[in-house]
């Protein structure tokens, strides 16, 4: 499948960053995601980030590294006493290495119902093209 080849998670990178964090440790969650390639070659990435709204998500592309963070809404008050805590604490962070050239100017993102969807259009030079024979 193309998705396995196209995008590789920066496992080492994330661990390194976590280890070098400041004293007040930020807890990061790695969100679930999937990738689909459209007929034209462009990619669509979906990232599951329940509790994150439009303003809480940030996306950056540095060379071929796509970084996504999502800060979750805090839905409980200090004074509440926990009876059951199964949902993890922390914000989301995902760092992906793209092995194709993406047109950064045309990346489109939207968040709906806690899922971030990113349209990743291939850069023109990365698209397959037919060579005419004269």
């Amino acid at each position, binding site marked *: 499948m193309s998705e396995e080849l196209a995008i590789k998670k920066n496992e080492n990178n994330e661990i390194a960053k976590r280890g070098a964090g400041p004293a007040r440790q930020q807890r990061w969650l790695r969100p*679930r995601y999937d990738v689909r390639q459209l007929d034209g070659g462009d990619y669509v990435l979906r990232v*599951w980030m329940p509790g994150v709204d439009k303003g809480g998500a940030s996306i950056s592309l540095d060379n071929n590294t796509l970084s996504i963070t999502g800060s979750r809404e805090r839905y409980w008050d200090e004074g509440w006493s926990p009876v059951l805590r199964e949902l993890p604490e922390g914000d989301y962070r995902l760092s992906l290495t793209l092995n194709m050239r993406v047109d950064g100017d045309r990346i489109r993102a939207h968040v709906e119902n806690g899922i971030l969807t990113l349209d990743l259009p291939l850069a023109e030079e990365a698209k397959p093209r037919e060579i005419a024979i004269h």
Partner: protein
Amino acid sequence: MKLVRYEHPESALANGFDNWFRRMFGDFGSFANLGGGLAGAMNTNSDPSDVGLHADLFEADGAYHASFALPGLTKDDVKVELVNSVLTVSGEFSDTHGESERKMAFSRSLALPDGVDPGKISAEMRNGMLHITMSKTEERKPLAIDVK
């Protein structure tokens, strides 16, 4: 969102969809397990949390607050029921990605430790999270007695 008649969580929909929820919320599941304690201990066979829909439950002054992670779902996909202090969240929806479409279902029940006033429950879907607020019945609330 509506309150409807209670069905036993082990019946019908509740079973057989465990795997999907593990895939869907895999990380949530594993993080909850890493936390150990209650969540870890509850992830055994036949336990309600085995369906993989994880929850937070808080007790506040006169109320309970329950939260569930249901990314991608809208209020029309979710059903909330309360019977005899057992709160059940369930639903069905389809996950569409390109041409592929999968039908999904889930169910999770929480036994509330104390009486809840059935007339005073509110539920809201917000950014893929379901938040439910339930008021305790009057007689369960701490009562200050004037000493004469």
